[in-house]
């Protein structure tokens, strides 16, 4: 067979292709954002990337860091796949990036934590910091905690704590039904909710506690709705997201179930888009670090949101991407260098004026401590949600704020620090 010539040609073709690798540019601090920029969840990754780029523009317009260096945000597409995440990490190492941002998908975050741990051990002097903006698995700042990982979002337990705090404030809540996704995140939500409900809202009776097969496998929620109705629950506490959240809400509204939904992710723009007109009928609550209708937002944030809205035609939904970049910039300036280890030390314990009050990066476990706001989806809010220029006609209105003391939880982290 004439395979030889064939293989030779093939090899040549590959050599030609591989030679084109990205080259490093000087005089800017480059930050890699590893998120799904293609594939089914690309919208989430792209929105996050926009937020970082917008925040970096703000820093750069103020003169950058270290007296004139710009922050450059580079998007690296992981297509929501574990292998591609690793691939992009290698690419980031090749490019000499010291800062990696990621948040969509706790599994990928865990990959990055493990990768960074191994990399930093095997390559002293070329350390990488992982700045996590949305991966909420509590273990990352408990038993899995690492010096190289900083979480700028509240973890599951903190979010549940805020929800439970708010549930405790509502005397009309008597019977509560929990429905969660049967995988790591859903189970940690379930565990935290069981623990915190018993401690902080003992008067509420848990009449149901159920796990479903996650990721859109459940097509029809009617049987679950029937069970909830039969249990007499007035409130549902759920960590569901994506299709599992949308179908749950649509099923409940379609069957006339008028229970309150306490959720973490029920208010994601993609979910609200999916509810359609049912979004106006459901009594749905979310917990976030901010929402645009909260009274008394800092002036700086209001202006920033307006700028974001003007540029992307999206409602400014989450503040953590902004404070991540601003705090990183501040830490670099404080350390006087862009080297990761001093910057990491500067980040530890750093405070920042957040939308609901001061937030602080706890040094002991690198978990941001913050107040959280519980809000209700309504079509009567003054400022509706826009997404890609489309008006959803609904938005969130504040129910109550869980202060830092309410959301602050102890940690089991025993952090190993570099010398």
């Amino acid at each position, binding site marked *: 067979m004439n395979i030889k010539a064939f293989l030779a040609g093939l090899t040549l073709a590959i050599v030609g292709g591989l030679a084109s690798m990205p080259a490093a540019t000087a005089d800017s601090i480059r930050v890699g954002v590893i998120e799904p920029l293609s594939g089914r969840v690309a919208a989430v990754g792209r929105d996050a990337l926009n937020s970082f780029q917008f925040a970096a523009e703000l820093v750069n317009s103020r003169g950058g860091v270290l007296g004139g260096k710009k922050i450059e945000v580079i998007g690296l597409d992981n297509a929501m796949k574990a292998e591609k995440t690793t691939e992009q990490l290698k690419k980031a190492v090749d490019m000499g990036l010291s800062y990696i941002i990621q948040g969509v998908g706790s599994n990928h975050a865990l990959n990055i934590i493990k990768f960074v741990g191994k990399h930093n051990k095997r390559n002293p002097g070329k350390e990488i910091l992982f700045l996590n903006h949305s991966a909420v698995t509590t273990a990352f700042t408990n038993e899995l905690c690492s010096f190289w990982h900083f979480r700028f979002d509240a973890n599951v337990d903190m979010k549940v704590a805020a929800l439970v705090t708010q549930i405790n404030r509502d005397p009309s809540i008597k019977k509560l039904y929990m429905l969660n996704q*049967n995988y790591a995140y859903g189970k940690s939500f379930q565990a935290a909710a069981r623990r915190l409900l018993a401690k902080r809202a003992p008067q509420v009776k848990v009449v149901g506690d159920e796990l479903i097969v996650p990721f859109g496998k459940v097509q029809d929620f009617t049987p679950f709705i029937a069970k909830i*109705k039969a249990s007499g629950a007035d409130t549902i506490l759920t960590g569901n997201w994506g*299709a599992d959240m949308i179908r749950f809400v649509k099923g409940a509204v379609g069957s006339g179930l008028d229970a309150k939904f306490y959720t973490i992710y029920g208010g994601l723009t993609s979910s609200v888009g999916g509810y359609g007109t049912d979004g106006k009928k459901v009594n749905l609550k979310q917990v976030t670090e901010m929402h645009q209708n909260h009274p008394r937002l800092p002036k700086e944030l209001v202006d920033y949101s307006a700028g974001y809205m003007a540029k992307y035609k999206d409602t400014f939904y989450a503040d953590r991407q902004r404070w991540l970049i601003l705090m990183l910039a501040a830490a670099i300036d404080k350390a006087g260098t862009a080297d990761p280890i001093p910057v990491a030390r500067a980040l530890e314990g750093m405070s920042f004026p957040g939308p609901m009050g001061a937030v602080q990066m706890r040094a002991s476990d690198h978990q941001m401590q913050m107040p959280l706001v519980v809000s209700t989806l309504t079509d009567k809010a003054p400022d509706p949600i826009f997404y890609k220029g489309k008006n959803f006609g609904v938005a969130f209105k504040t129910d109550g704020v869980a202060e830092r003391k309410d959301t602050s939880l102890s940690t089991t982290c025993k952090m190993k620090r570099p010398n």
Partner: protein
Amino acid sequence: MEVLVFSIFNGLLYGMLLFMLASGLTLIFSLMGVLNFAHASFFMLGAYFAYQISGFIGFWPGLVFAPLIVGVIGAAVERYGLRPVHKFGHVAELLFTFGLAFVIEEVVQMIWGKVPVPYDIPETMNVAAFTWRGLDYSAYRLFMLGASVAIFLALFVFIAKTRTGLIIQAALTHPNIVSSLGHDVGKIFMWTFGFGCALAGVAGVIGGNVLGTEPSMAITLGPIVFVVIVIGGLGSLWGALIAALFIGIMDNLSISYDLSLYPVLALFGVEREVEGIMQDLVNLTTAGLAPVLPYLFLVLMLILRPRGLFGTRDV
């Protein structure tokens, strides 16, 4: 007892939606022997077209035009895509439709984006028709039920009375007979495929607003539809109906009764509090297993009786 009847009723509602999807697929299979992997993708197209059309001129025109468009697309796919592949055999046809499902999902993302679109139930029908055990049943759900029953009856008449229907019946028992039909076999293939796709489109229009309209709706629903027609017996309309209802009702029952595997394991001396892999087994419940059960039945059916419940020939 009431729980049982109630669950069966809910299963009926869901099962009939599955049937609407499965009917087109089984129709296509019975005539052409093609298992259309992209069938759920046509369902998705139906939902998206209906969303787009209902935004302009309302739900009812959508119910007419969206399936028509899907049907024409399906016919075009058969004529210009599937027919050249036909000579390479059924595996190549399956491969083609597999690729097609992949491409349709990408095109849908390209046109309508990756986030769900707000395709709503028409307001006039979004009112409770009756309430049972505290659950409202909207007029729309009854409409869904009525529409699927109507489709079943119409198909039944179509197969029993029309020329094409007779050919389909004949083709089922004697697959080679269609080749001796002469010059119009190509046209019959094309329009049957288009018609089957249009049925999927109807299901998309009617079901898209209940299940949620998003780019991954095809890939999550597609395999279930395969389960339905394989269990029912490929090419059998009755089989598809029975299997769809079976899947729908089983799904509801396993969630309503929510039995645990633990009592069974306890017979083998397994403790409630165990560590490791056994812990997962002890905690297994039928509700947790509900989405797996159809595939279990699929595999068992194919191993034990590959022609399905009512099938007249093997897959």
